[in-house]
């Protein structure tokens, strides 16, 4: 469904991604792992059109989208849960969700479905997003992305700085979305989180594909990842 084919991305003169390829199919959980600075977030931003690629291509359903203006990407039902949450911090919970709903004109039922995954948010609709706890903020960032009814969801380190119970909630949400045939691209640092979920794993280093693993391989021999991530 979503396909990156040998993309190069640079910040000014500094090239960060070198011929990176990956793809995500419907109902599949694909993990992207790599050390700090490997270029994981850069790849995510390139998919969203927030960074221009200098060669290669990005396709959704076989259609080339890498030349689209960025504001058209979410309309293709590609949802983003960015690193560091990036909520509209002075808007309320409800308003943050509203921004997501506007993408496809989703109504109350779309919002309701997003909220059902995170009932805590339901009671806090009028609270200012910036005053939520870290875990609640992550829930909201995820619910906001669900409001665009994504077919592909990009999650950039959703469990960063969360305690285990919160991590479990996010993981449950991801599994539930997988059942709904949503394709998931999950950026993770924590090997334990990757292990249980992944159908496939892309290990990248210095902006290049280093190795691909199946979920089975990783589960059998987690050392493969642990060694590379230097944990």
């Amino acid at each position, binding site marked *: 469904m979503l396909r990156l084919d040998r993309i190069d991305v640079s910040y000014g003169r500094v090239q960060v991604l070198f011929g990176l390829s990956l793809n995500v199919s419907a109902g599949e959980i694909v993990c992207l792992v790599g050390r700090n600075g490997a270029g994981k977030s850069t790849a995510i931003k390139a998919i969203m059109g927030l960074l221009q690629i200098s060669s290669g291509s990005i396709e959704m359903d076989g259609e080339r989208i890498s030349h689209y203006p960025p504001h058209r990407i979410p309309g293709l039902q590609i949802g983003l849960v960015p690193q560091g949450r990036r909520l*509209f911090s002075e808007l309320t919970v409800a308003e943050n969700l509203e921004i997501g709903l506007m993408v496809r004109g989703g109504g109350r039922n779309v919002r309701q479905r997003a909220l059902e995954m995170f009932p805590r948010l339901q009671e806090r609709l009028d609270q200012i997003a910036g005053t939520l706890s870290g875990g609640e903020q992550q829930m909201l960032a995820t619910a906001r992305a669900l409001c665009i009814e994504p077919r592909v969801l990009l999650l950039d380190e959703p469990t960063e700085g969360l305690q285990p119970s919160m991590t479990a909630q996010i993981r449950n949400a991801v599994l539930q979305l997988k059942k709904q045939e949503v394709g998931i691209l999950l950026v993770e640092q924590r090997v334990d989180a990757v292990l249980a979920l992944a159908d496939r794993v892309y290990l990248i280093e210095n902006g290049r594909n280093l190795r691909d693993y199946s979920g089975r391989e990783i589960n059998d021999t987690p050392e493969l990842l642990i060694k590379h991530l230097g944990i």
Partner: protein
Amino acid sequence: MEFGPHFLLATLEGALTAAVLALTAVGLSVVFGIMRVVNVAHGEFFMLGAVIAWFVSTTVGIHPAVGFLLALVVAPVMVGFLAIVADQLVLRRLDYDPERTIVATIGLLYCIQQVTLMTFGPDARPVIPPFNQRIALPWFELGEQGFQVTWPWGFGVTTYKLAVIMFAVIILVGLWRFLARSKFGLIMRATQLDREMALAFGIPIERVYAIVFGLGAGLAALGAVLIVPIRQAHYLMGGEPLLLSFIVVIIGGLGSIPGTIMAAILIGLSDGIISVFFSPTLAKIIATLLVAFVLVYRPQGLFGRRLP
């Protein structure tokens, strides 16, 4: 005139200044807040509003009031449209870079000013107010015979001035509700908070910027149309509103609309009162000094929130 009535008159003058200043400065404030563009040409949009108001009200020769009411709609719309064109031709090409857009809007300032000089000419031109009855005001005094009502000579306001103040309040309240409640207001606030995330949620921020720039210019033009029957149209009249708007926006806290309105009231009232009792120059000196103090001791503005 005694001190009491005199002071009340000065306050009314100040309220008039505050009303027009609030409209103009809020225009500058939304442009800065949402686009991060310091629009040095803002005063020229004000001036254009006044000049267009003169043109419309003198060429549409039905009745001065009709011409003026027409100008009240036509001038802000035309100026707003011109600003959108400038945004598309200049600011967008510069990718809204905060520094380069300052230089670009300085260029825009001179372009607008000189074209106006070449077409409209160097003369100041009056616009007739649509209505202008004088209302004498009573004054109450506790004299030897108890409570007394007097009618001090020269103590009164014109209906036009009162109407301007009320109209400005209505527009500002309307704008506030628009920003807080409407869908486009929500889009504007989201864009202001995080433009990259706005894009990632499908908001076409360049279109939002164009509309915001048009809105900001339109507000300046509206302020000008309201004041032009009192102050006359002139091609150099943009300097003072620009200076005062900057003062107000800095004191109010950059990009904060409630702060801007509060600061406009503070500066407008003190300008009116100090001008009447002392001199307009002293009023400007005090306002400028206040800005210097705010910049040094409270850079987030008197009414702005402290930056984290």
